[in-house]
């Protein structure tokens, strides 16, 4: 019965990575960057799509009022808005309510907002809905004539903006990603080539004693796979760090966008990273070996 030890192959693969330190490091670094970019891109798209879905009421205008208005003035503004025929419903959102909503969206970072309740930086606002996109111009025209209205924002603008950003980003990222992947595979091919070269004499002895092609190749295939695995695990942690810092830095400045918490996507990201990382590693080493094993 034939028996081969997995530990032998893994040992050889790790030895190869260690012996070939600089190249292995370069491979891991480049593949990792590639995965981080891929991850960032995916997170962005997922977030954009979620936000587009959440904008269920696209026919909506948010009217932000001046700061420091008295309750009377606000009630007066509400009355004026109600006079606009095209406005279907009007809902008042106090500054405190707005802040609470923001805090809710931040999820695990909600406590960041605690300090703002004392001196709320937001103003009261009204949410106006309407039936037809054509009504928008009329409503906006009327709003311009109301004193105490600081600014207003309609949602269609956001929808357009987001899909524009999405398309632009998609284009740039796909190119960037393609180039990075080619570079990754290329570097892995060379890393494995070097590793094979440094074991040339060992391999020739193995051939003479009747080692099969796969017995000789497996350590190198594993070397590529382990490089991919390392790259994907590191990429995961880098991605987590970057995303959380990004969410943290955006914090209070965006009022309409809901960012998906990292924890919700973590499992999927890790799995995809590992699959792509390991596959790329195996692909690189296979290409490298295919030239060698033909003889």
């Amino acid at each position, binding site marked *: 019965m034939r028996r081969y030890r997995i530990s032998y192959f893994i040992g050889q693969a790790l030895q190869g990575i260690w012996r070939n330190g600089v190249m292995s490091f370069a491979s891991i670094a480049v593949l990792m960057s590639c995965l981080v970019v891929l991850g960032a891109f995916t997170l962005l798209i997922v977030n954009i799509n979620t936000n587009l879905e959440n904008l269920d009421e696209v026919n909506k205008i948010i009217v932000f009022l001046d700061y420091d208005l008295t309750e009377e003035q606000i009630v007066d503004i509400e009355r004026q808005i109600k006079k606009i025929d095209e406005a279907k419903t009007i809902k008042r959102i106090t500054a405190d309510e707005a802040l609470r909503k923001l805090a809710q969206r931040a999820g695990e970072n909600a406590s960041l907002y605690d300090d703002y309740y004392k001196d709320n930086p937001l103003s009261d606002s009204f949410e106006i809905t309407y039936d037809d996109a054509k009504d928008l111009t009329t409503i906006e025209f009327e709003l311009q004539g109301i004193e105490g209205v600081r600014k207003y924002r309609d949602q269609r603008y956001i929808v357009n903006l987001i899909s524009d950003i999405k398309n632009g980003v998609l284009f740039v990222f796909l190119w960037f990603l393609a180039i990075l992947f080619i570079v990754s595979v290329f570097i892995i091919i060379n890393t494995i080539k070097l590793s094979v070269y440094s074991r040339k004499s060992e391999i020739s002895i*193995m051939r003479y004693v009747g080692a*099969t*092609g796969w017995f000789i190749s497996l350590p190198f295939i594993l070397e590529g796979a382990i490089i991919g695995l390392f790259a994907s695990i590191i990429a995961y942690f880098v991605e987590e760090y970057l995303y959380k810092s990004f969410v943290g830095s955006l914090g209070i400045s965006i009022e309409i966008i809901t960012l998906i918490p990292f924890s919700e996507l973590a499992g999927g990201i890790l799995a995809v990273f590992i699959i792509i990382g390991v596959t790329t590693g195996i692909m690189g080493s296979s290409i490298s070996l295919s030239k060698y094993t033909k003889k």
Partner: protein
Amino acid sequence: MIDFIHVVKTYPNGTVALNDITLHIDDGEFVFVVGASGAGKTTLMKLILREEKVTSGKIIVDDIDITKLSYFRVPHYRRNLGVVFQDFRLFPKKTVYENVAFAMQVVGTPQKLIKRRVPALLKTVNLSEKSKCFPNELSGGEQQRVALARALANNPSIIIADEPTGNIDPKMSLEIMNLLIKINKLGKTVIVVTHEKSLVDYYQQRVISLDHGTIVDDRVGGMYE
């Protein structure tokens, strides 16, 4: 059993290393292959090992036409051959024991069997007490004996030695040659390429003489030149 039938080997650069070689080596034979440098001796060995392919002609080894052997079957074919080189080709970072055991691990021999067989092999080549040494702690003759033990590890029926005594002093050479004779007596076919006239004359075995890629002499008990 090894048969060469009108074998021609031309290297890609145009050198005709072997030209129309036909020869037969029986099971259990001991054969010296002699000839001047560049005569084609190593090429002959490489063809048997299927390290090089023939340009034309046929080579039959144990009823297998190895000129038609697919890439995937070469490793299995080689397990029936044991090879020894002038430069030993041991793993410098493995001990004597590990060097021999490795040849068996490579073909997936169970560890239990390896543990039983390696000491026996080392005993055959009189190196039992050196099993924990590294190659650089051994003399040339001893290193070549390790290589011989490794060549025997998978119990091949044919042993090929390309100038096995080329890097060893004459006294040790005799010891290596005696071992090869002993291995031959165990029933294995042994083919030895050598330059050493005195050894060939001493052993009185079959001698195949090559010159410029052709067989110029083939006789039992022959003398060098």
